[in-house]
């Protein structure tokens, strides 16, 4: 219930209203995420320097242990903590209302922290070197699964608090009409998250009981189908969340409005309907499931979720182009882009995220997710190449860009080292870009993922990979180090700013909620879209370039598949 205490402040720079409890929770969740990113980043460096055969830094035992921790701390802990912050921001802050049940939100946060600490302790004591996927019958200590379950329960509570906050905003009439598009994207992420976490519970609870000795057998095929409904869907939360962040940044930096609410929201709806089918992507090279199941599910029901991503890929830059053109940058096809604020890390990071996610992550994802093509990719290093493009360039870089916006408005601090902040998205984004391309190259040549030594030293019947593969791995090593430097720059700037940045005026807390009141228009035709014509030709050219790259690469892979052994 709204209390009489002074709870609300309006940021003098952005006009956003922060509810005190929500503000604190957004901060702690974001900070917890960044701490995980720091840990995961150190591990990333060790992994890169080990797989880079010329350096081959740490021994096999530690390598597999660290790879397990890196996967979970990055893919689960960093991203989901930051997503909790985004959910609270998109509900309480964007809708200008109080956060529902802040105490429960603190409890959820505590559960997530306890879960994280639990599984990390188990991993680092060497009792759970099973990789993030923990495929049975390879066992881990029960506390490993328990830690994951606690974390997931915490995240689930966070999702319901988000939904509760939407109800509060509606009931207390703090906004009019429909929720903003960015909040709609967050709702998408939240719905997928609930499905994801439920799947995780369905499989991790019995696996926990199995590892504790109460259940005798976990079927490995069943585990894979259900675990991946958790493992892959978790990445779809990220997609929905970082696309919401793209829209938010386009709005914040350019004042861009969606080209069409209808198209963008429809695309998010397609995500809700189809993205969770992605479990199949991981089962394509498996026995025990049928072809029809694989084909239908891997294509997200005939690629309708891919269609959604292709729509966002047009509408996000399209919204930016329209906003820029409205400001008078109308020369030629690309003046709007040339004159974009490339020195502002909020924008540059977001744009690199968009390009990297589409061209590297999106296209490679569809290759791997094609039933037959998967056979020439499955479990090679191409796979982590793909998901580093989606989750690191796409999600992580988008979240990093958002941080540069949140530091002054949420933490009320002026950025330290603005020169570093300016460079950071380029170092990180381009380093990661080269890193993922090198991985995909090496994977095409057959280099396996999760492998300590591809020279097979000490094996009875070793195999020598082609020289090109080793060259790719060397490029991967160098690019990986560059990306880690980019990540370190982010940590230095953000942590430094929170600790030492110049304090900015936060705006005074008051008891008053300032609801969002807009001059809502009822007219149906006025100001609809951007002139209803070819308002964004530059973006359309980009989209066509993307399509051509996509089509060519797709058929190149089929050509390659047609040359391998006959299989039936």
């Amino acid at each position: 219930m709204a209390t009489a205490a002074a709870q609300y402040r309006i940021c003098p720079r952005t006009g956003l209203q922060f509810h005190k409890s929500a503000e604190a929770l957004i901060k702690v969740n974001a900070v917890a995420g960044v701490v995980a990113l720091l840990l995961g980043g150190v591990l990333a460096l060790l992994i890169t320097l080990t797989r880079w055969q010329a350096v081959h830094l740490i021994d096999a035992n530690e390598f597999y242990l660290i790879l397990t921790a890196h996967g979970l701390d990055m893919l689960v802990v960093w991203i989901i903590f930051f997503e909790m912050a985004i959910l609270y921001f998109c509900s309480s802050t964007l809708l200008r209302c109080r956060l529902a049940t802040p105490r429960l939100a603190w409890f959820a946060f505590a559960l997530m922290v306890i879960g994280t600490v639990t599984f990390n302790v188990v991993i680092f004591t060497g009792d759970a070197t099973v990789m993030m996927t923990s495929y049975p019958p390879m066992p881990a200590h029960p506390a490993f699964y328990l830690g994951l379950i606690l974390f997931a329960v915490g995240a689930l509570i966070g999702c319901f608090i988000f939904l509760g906050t939407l109800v509060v905003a509606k009931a207390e009439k703090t906004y009019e009409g429909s929720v903003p598009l960015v909040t709609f994207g967050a709702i998408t992420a939240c719905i997928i998250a609930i499905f994801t976490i439920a799947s995780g519970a369905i499989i991790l609870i019995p696996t926990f009981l199995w590892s504790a000795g109460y259940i005798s057998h976990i079927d490995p095929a069943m585990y894979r189908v259900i675990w991946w409904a958790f493992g892959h869907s978790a990445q779809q939360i990220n997609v929905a969340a970082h696309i919401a962040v793209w829209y938010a940044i386009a709005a914040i930096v350019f004042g861009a409005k969606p080209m069409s609410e209808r198209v963008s929201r429809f695309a998010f709806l397609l995500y809700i309907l189809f993205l969770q089918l992605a479990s199949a992507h991981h089962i394509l090279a498996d026995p025990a499931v049928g072809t029809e199941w694989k084909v239908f599910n891997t294509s997200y029901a005939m690629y309708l979720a891919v269609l959604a991503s292709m729509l966002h890929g047009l509408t996000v830059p399209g919204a930016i182009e329209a906003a820029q053109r409205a400001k008078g940058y109308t020369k030629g096809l690309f003046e709007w882009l040339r004159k974009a604020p490339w020195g502002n890390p909020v924008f540059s990071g977001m744009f690199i995220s968009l390009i990297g996610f589409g061209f590297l992550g999106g296209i490679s994802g569809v290759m791997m997710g094609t039933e037959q093509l998967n056979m020439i990719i499955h479990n090679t290093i191409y796979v982590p190449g793909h998901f580093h493009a989606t989750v690191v360039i796409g999600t992580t870089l988008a979240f990093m860009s958002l941080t540069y916006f949140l530091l002054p408005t949420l933490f009320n601090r002026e950025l330290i080292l603005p020169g570093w902040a300016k460079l950071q998205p380029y170092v990180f984004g381009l380093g990661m870009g080269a890193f993922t391309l090198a991985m995909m190259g090496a994977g095409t040549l057959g280099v396996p993922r999760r492998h300590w030594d591809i020279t097979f030293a000490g094996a009875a019947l070793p195999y020598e990979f082609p020289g090109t593969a080793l060259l790719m791995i060397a490029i991967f090593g160098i690019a990986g180090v560059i990306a880690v430097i980019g990540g370190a720059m982010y940590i230095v700037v953000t942590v430094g700013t929170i600790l030492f940045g110049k304090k900015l005026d936060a705006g005074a807390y008051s008891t008053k909620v300032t609801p969002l009141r807009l001059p809502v228009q009822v007219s149906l035709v006025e100001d609809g879209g951007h002139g209803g014509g070819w308002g964004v030709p530059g973006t359309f050219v980009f989209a066509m370039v993307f399509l051509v790259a996509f089509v060519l690469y797709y058929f190149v892979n089929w050509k390659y598949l047609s040359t391998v052994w006959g299989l039936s």
Partner: protein
Amino acid sequence: MSAILPPQHRIWWKQPVDKIEIVWIVIAFVWCMIMFFMMPYWHVFGKQNLSTETYRVKPELFAKATQEMVDKYTVRTEGPNKVPVVAPPAGSDVYLIARLWDWWPILELENGKSYRLNLTSMDYQHGFSLQPENINIQILPGYQHVVTVTPNRTGQYAIVCNEFCGIGHHKMVSRLYVK
């Protein structure tokens, strides 16, 4: 008006959509359908499709069948561990065991002939990765997966394990010959 504020038009779902968006939706949708129908198309006209023939199997029974094949068709042994090299007749069922941390036995196949390759694991999950061909198949314990393979190039191949299976994972590599 922007994406972080409620839509300007209360009835936003009746707002007209830009031509450029409609054109892109149509193009993207057509491309999605092409990609979708490529998969069934390849099942009819393509030569590389993963079989789904699968049986539940007890490891001992699979090991017994493998041993029978080895007893009948071994032509030589190889490597420090004297792994048998087996040349079974074309068209027959051939067996390959994945276990911690080796592949057993080594198969010697004839170019252009088809074989029913039976795969299973004795313990954890493993990954069958044929190099430099780069054909990759998941292997699950308790499941016998039967894949018909038709080699199309002679030479020495490697089978690498590409599913993490413990500390000896990176040493789990073997050979396969095509004559």
